[in-house]
């Protein structure tokens, strides 16, 4: 399988009034063609910043990509000029935002917003653009497109708006779609519809998807692989099966334990105590140390190396070290 995207050692910082926030601190991951990668984690862990960094949409100032590379089809987006980046956005990589209520401009018609990406990048006639727009509205399941194109965002419900946002993202037929919490702001029933739409689109177009979410239910439904992020670092990656059935990092286990399950008899929710560390001055060791039930001295002092368990399953945790396994047995 071809790797469509390879992110290496990505660092993003924000200088704010209170100091410098190290929001993303050396993230590595890749995305294969046609697959869906979910990046999961608590709010503030840097997952949205990572996705914005790929699109180069980090507002600068205060944000800045300080290190690392973002290889998209072999080209490093981190080194692209703003102008060159514009020809990538919407054409090769598209993005969907969390809240469909605010993602559409209230003063422009749906048609205008749908077609403008197309007209910006591809030299198409007005009629052709309209045809394409109607086609996209059909694809995302909005009835009576010719009429609806003339309407304004406030005349659509939340779920409908998110469908329109998806249509806007797909109109130039991009190869990569980044969806930043695409279902968080929606009702549960609508969420399922939108997720089904993603699956349908992927089957139809073969598009690769990065899904940013904190909702493990969403992940279970449509992700192929999962990357778990904590305090600006990816601490575990694996296929959906590996993460759900053989989680290795105590944080991943904690995340899974804090989701209600009906299939287990003695279902008990175990919350993770404490809060994530302050990213103004992140700890030099493993950032989860303070909340980890298995924390060792070494965790506090040194960040753990990446351990490859299988070809697809990797984890950064000192518990993988032979010497730690002794300790676990003892206690």
């Amino acid at each position, binding site marked *: 399988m071809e790797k469509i995207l390879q992110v290496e050692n990505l660092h993003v910082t924000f200088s704010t009034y209170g100091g410098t926030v190290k929001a993303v601190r050396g993230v590595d991951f890749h995305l294969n063609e046609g697959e869906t990668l979910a990046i999961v984690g608590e709010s503030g862990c840097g997952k949205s910043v990572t996705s914005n960094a790929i699109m180069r*949409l980090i507002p600068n100032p205060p944000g800045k990509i300080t290190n690392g590379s973002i290889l998209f089809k072999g080209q490093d987006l981190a080194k692209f000029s703003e102008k060159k980046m514009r020809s990538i956005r*919407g054409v090769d990589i598209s993005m969907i*935002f969390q809240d469909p209520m605010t*993602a559409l401009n*209230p003063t422009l018609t749906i048609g205008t917003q749908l077609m*403008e990406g197309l007209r*910006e990048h591809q030299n198409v006639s007005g009629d052709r653009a309209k045809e394409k727009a109607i086609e996209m509205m059909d694809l995302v399941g909005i009835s009576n497109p010719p009429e609806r194109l003339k309407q*304004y965002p406030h005349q659509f419900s939340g779920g409908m708006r998110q469908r329109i946002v998806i249509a806007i*993202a797909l109109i130039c037929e991009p190869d990569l779609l980044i969806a930043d919490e695409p279902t968080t702001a929606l009702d549960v029933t609508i969420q399922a519809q939108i997720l089904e739409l993603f699956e349908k689109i992927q089957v139809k177009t073969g598009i690769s998807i990065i899904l940013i979410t904190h909702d493990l239910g969403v992940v279970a439904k449509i992700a192929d692989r999962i990357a778990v992020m904590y305090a600006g670092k990816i601490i575990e990656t694996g296929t959906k099966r590996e993460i759900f059935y053989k989680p290795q990092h105590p944080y991943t286990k904690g995340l899974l334990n804090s989701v209600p399950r009906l299939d287990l008899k003695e279902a008990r929710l175990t919350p993770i105590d404490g809060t994530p560390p302050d990213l103004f001055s992140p700890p030099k060791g493993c950032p989860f140390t303070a909340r980890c039930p298995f924390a060792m001295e070494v965790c506090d002092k040194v960040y753990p190396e990446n351990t490859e368990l299988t070809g697809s399953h990797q984890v950064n945790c000192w518990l993988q070290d032979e010497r730690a396994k002794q300790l676990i047995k003892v206690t």
Partner: protein
Amino acid sequence: MLKYIFKRFGIMLVTLWIIITLTFILMINVPGSPFNSDQSSNETIQANLEAHYNLDEPYHIQYLLYLKSIVTFDFGPSIKQPNQSVNDLLGRGFPISFELGMMTIIVAVISGIILGIIASLKHNGFIDYLAMGLAVLGISIPNFILATLLIQQIAVNLEILPTATWSSPAHMILPVTALATGPMAIIARLTRSTMLEVLTQDYIKMAKAKGLSPWKIVFKHALRNALMPVVTIMGTLLAGILTGTFVIEQIFAIPGMGKYFVESINQRDYPVIMGTTVFYSAFLILMLFLVDIAYGILDPRIKFHKKGGE
């Protein structure tokens, strides 16, 4: 949309009625007003007054006839200048004041919006600080002080532009500058702050994610939304400019309505004060109404409010 216009129109009528009634109530209570028959040596004036205000009728009839005269655009006679009616003064003075006001508003809106956009795009940069520093000065220096400063420095000391009157385009530069600076500063500050807010909205991020050029993002997506609040303060700004013409016309000796109005205040020429107040209030309230309609047209959320959709 129609319902919205209708509602606005209703409010406009009530406001107008209040101001007309207010003038009437105040005038029958004020000492030395035409409604107290104890003054005025000039017989022509007295006769004019009695004819116009029906002073021999009881108050409620006077009031109704007063309402009628205003609805028919007859503002009555002056009590200080015989054979002059308020309509004569308005006919002579208002076109000039209107010209001054319109030029001011055009200058203020265009320069204010441009300044605001530039400042917002260079947020926290040198140009931003400079523009906003000037804007704070602009709203802090009263127009009459700015006017005297301009006369002293540019007209008297440097002798670049004429000091007074309203006879050529060169004569217009100083008064328009003095009057437009304040509104311009207000518009610039408001445009900047709403632009900054709009630029952080998701739909701007979305437009960026579409790969649109910065030019398109600013002018197609941001500016229209950022200008909505500017439209809403236009009514207040117009009122400020209109009252500003009173002092500016006085200082620059421009023979507009404002100058007559200030003279009438100093001479306690009550019918002129009343007539001008009612006329100007009606004018402003009408402008406010038009601004509201413009807002309804600009913002599709209002237009379709009662027309279905979801």
